[in-house]
């Protein structure tokens, strides 16, 4: 008995390697932009939901100022998740399922460069036995990469370099990214390690950005948009955070979420996957049953060339939806992740009618 919900419009602020704008300055024009694209007024929006992280911005209640970007008058129905905007999209999707609203604006901003993100993310770890060692997020990802390399499967240093090269190249062509110096996989393999076995280009570049999408249900979606990107399935699952307690050479929670979202098995034209590290993209492809020969993977460049944390997952949804909305793809997968080493994963199947 679930309602059909679609993404009907998206808006991204071109990302910056370091912004001086405040969250509100990043968000306000993005929200105005997405409303214009959707063709709805602020007052017509049934629900506003956003994602952000206090520790990333360095302020408790940092999301409260984000409300200033909305123009929340008269008072609105609004909620917030401490996490990526993709999870805020999930909350909005659930709310629409209840029938409480027919439209929602989901947004996120990530000022990843405000602090030292690698250190800040250490604070996600077990506060008693892991965080006091202060391992950075990249070190943990590197541990996972080594485990994958040792396992001798699809993840090889060469394959990782291919992923990075493709990301750089796609990022150069992406108007929301537009930076980078093209390189072949072989050239990348010659570069020094950052946290071995990860090289700098294997790690998502921390950048600042903002993104918003509009969700609409059923007839509301059809009235707003010629070719809505219908969310045919959406699900999220979490793994243990303890790295030694799960297999690091697979993403079990992604596979479970994919199954529940109905992703596995059928033809997928394009997939936008949030892989902050190159080897993780390869793990996600396996977990999602995706073949790069048959599916366009991260045509946006993904999160390696540009990783505005807390927004990067929602950016994947926007990129996937854009292609469905434009008619260049019929079926798309969007994915977001959070926690160390792909601990928590959200998967959605988008389809054009």
């Amino acid at each position, binding site marked *: 008995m679930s309602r059909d919900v679609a993404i009907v419009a998206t808006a991204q602020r071109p990302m910056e390697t370091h912004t001086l704008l405040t969250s509100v300055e990043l968000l306000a024009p993005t929200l105005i932009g997405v409303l214009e694209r959707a063709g709805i007024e602020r007052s017509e929006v049934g629900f506003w939901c956003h994602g952000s992280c206090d520790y990333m911005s360095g302020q408790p209640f940092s999301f409260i100022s984000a409300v*200033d970007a909305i123009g929340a008058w008269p*008072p609105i129905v*609004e909620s917030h998740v401490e996490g990526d905007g993709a999870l805020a999209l999930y909350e909005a999707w659930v709310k629409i399922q209840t029938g409480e609203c027919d439209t929602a604006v989901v947004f996120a901003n990530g000022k990843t460069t405000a602090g030292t993100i690698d250190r800040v993310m250490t604070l996600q770890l077990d506060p008693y036995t892991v965080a006091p060692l202060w391992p950075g997020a990249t070190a943990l990802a590197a541990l996972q990469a080594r485990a994958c390399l040792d396992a001798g499967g699809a993840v090889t240093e060469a394959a990782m370099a291919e992923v990075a090269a493709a990301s750089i190249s796609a990022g150069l062509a992406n108007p929301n990214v537009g930076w980078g110096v093209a390189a072949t996989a072989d050239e990348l393999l010659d570069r020094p390690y950052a946290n071995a076995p990860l090289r700098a280009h294997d790690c998502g570049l921390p950048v600042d950005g903002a993104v918003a999408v509009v969700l609409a249900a059923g007839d509301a979606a059809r009235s707003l948009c010629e070719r809505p990107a219908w969310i045919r399935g959406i699900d999220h699952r979490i793994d243990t955070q303890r790295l030694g307690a799960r297999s690091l050479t697979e993403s079990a929670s992604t596979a479970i979420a994919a199954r529940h979202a109905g992703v596995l098995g059928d033809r997928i034209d394009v997939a936008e996957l949030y892989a902050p590290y190159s080897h993780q993209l390869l793990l996600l492809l396996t977990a999602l049953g995706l073949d790069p020969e048959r599916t366009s993977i991260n045509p946006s460049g993904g999160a390696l060339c540009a990783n505005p944390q807390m927004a990067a997952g929602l950016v994947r949804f926007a990129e996937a939806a854009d292609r469905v909305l434009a008619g260049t793809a019929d079926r798309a997968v969007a994915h977001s992740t959070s926690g160390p080493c792909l601990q928590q994963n959200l998967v959605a199947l988008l389809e054009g009618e």
Partner: protein
Amino acid sequence: MAERCAVIGVGQTHHTACRADVSIAGLVREAVDRALESAGMGIADIDAIVIGKAPDMLEGIAMPELWLADALAAHGKPLFRVHTAGSVGGSTAIVAAQHVMGGVHERVLTIGFEKQSDGNTMWALSVPIPFGMPVHAGAGGYFSPIVRTYIARYDVPLHIGAMVAVKDRANALKNPYAHLHDEGLTLEKAMESPMLWDPIRFVETCPSSDGAIALVLTDEATADAHVADTGRSVAWIHATAMRSEPTIFAGREQVSPVAGEMCAADLWRKGGITNPAEEIDAVEMYVPFSWFEPMWLENLGFAPKGDGWRWVEDGVTEMTGSLPVNASGGVLSSNPIGASGMLRFGEAAMQVMGIAGEHQISDVRKAVGHAYGGGSQFFAMWLLGRDKP
């Protein structure tokens, strides 16, 4: 269109200044285990977990729900984190309920918690923003001027805040889980309590607590089976509502914020309530400074504007009154910030379910849970009933 949803289990910790005996996982599990027992379930029966808490600087852990996945046996399940400032406990319960009402899951565990003693509450909530003017007055310094405005606007006698404090602390004596057990607090003693942020006195101020609460929310089939199997009661969710407004804007009304009024109006409309004061049998509202009780009575549409304080004075909101407010002792007696909103929602459920023990109001057919946060700008409420909606 929505599925029916019921609260079938409630569990909370003994709230106190410092739960020295537990880790954060232990604190959360104490509430969770009691909620599961109350629901007659094991943790394996839960389909999804929705957690809410306030700013992560309180404990110095970013997104602690990720690490807590192990302690909650959440591997392979959906786990979700809500953060809407002080109202978070309430909005979290609403988000959890929507998972059931939207037909997404059948059995949802929702948790609110805070372990404030691990850090420093005042510091964590008011990290100064560069280029601003730090007045260092904290939450009390923010809300106290608003209270002054209420008093001035309606010429409110100055003992009203103390009356509410005496009531809530007396109620807390009947709540074994409450943080503050203030024996022998009289109105006279309360009026002698020192001013912290005049006009708010020390005794009129909430504590800083470690604590957690968990609720088990299920679909109709599970709730019906639970009732049939155990003979226990459940609390049916009749309506939920949320509203937000900006912190500062020209012409903003702060004593009775429009977002609060609209949130309540939405709740009454959805729940088919036309006369809240008469139709609601028990209210758990978010009163961190005692003066907010008369203010919220007006804001939520129970009492006419300017009359909230008369209701307090007339004893309307006492446990023996016609509209008992905060029989649990309220935020004024226990305030683990991330849990406080859900404590209101959960205590309202306990009243409907008849499991509030010594602080049970008799014959509660309908109860309301209310939470607010930020600069009196985020509001979350739910309406519960003994009967199905």
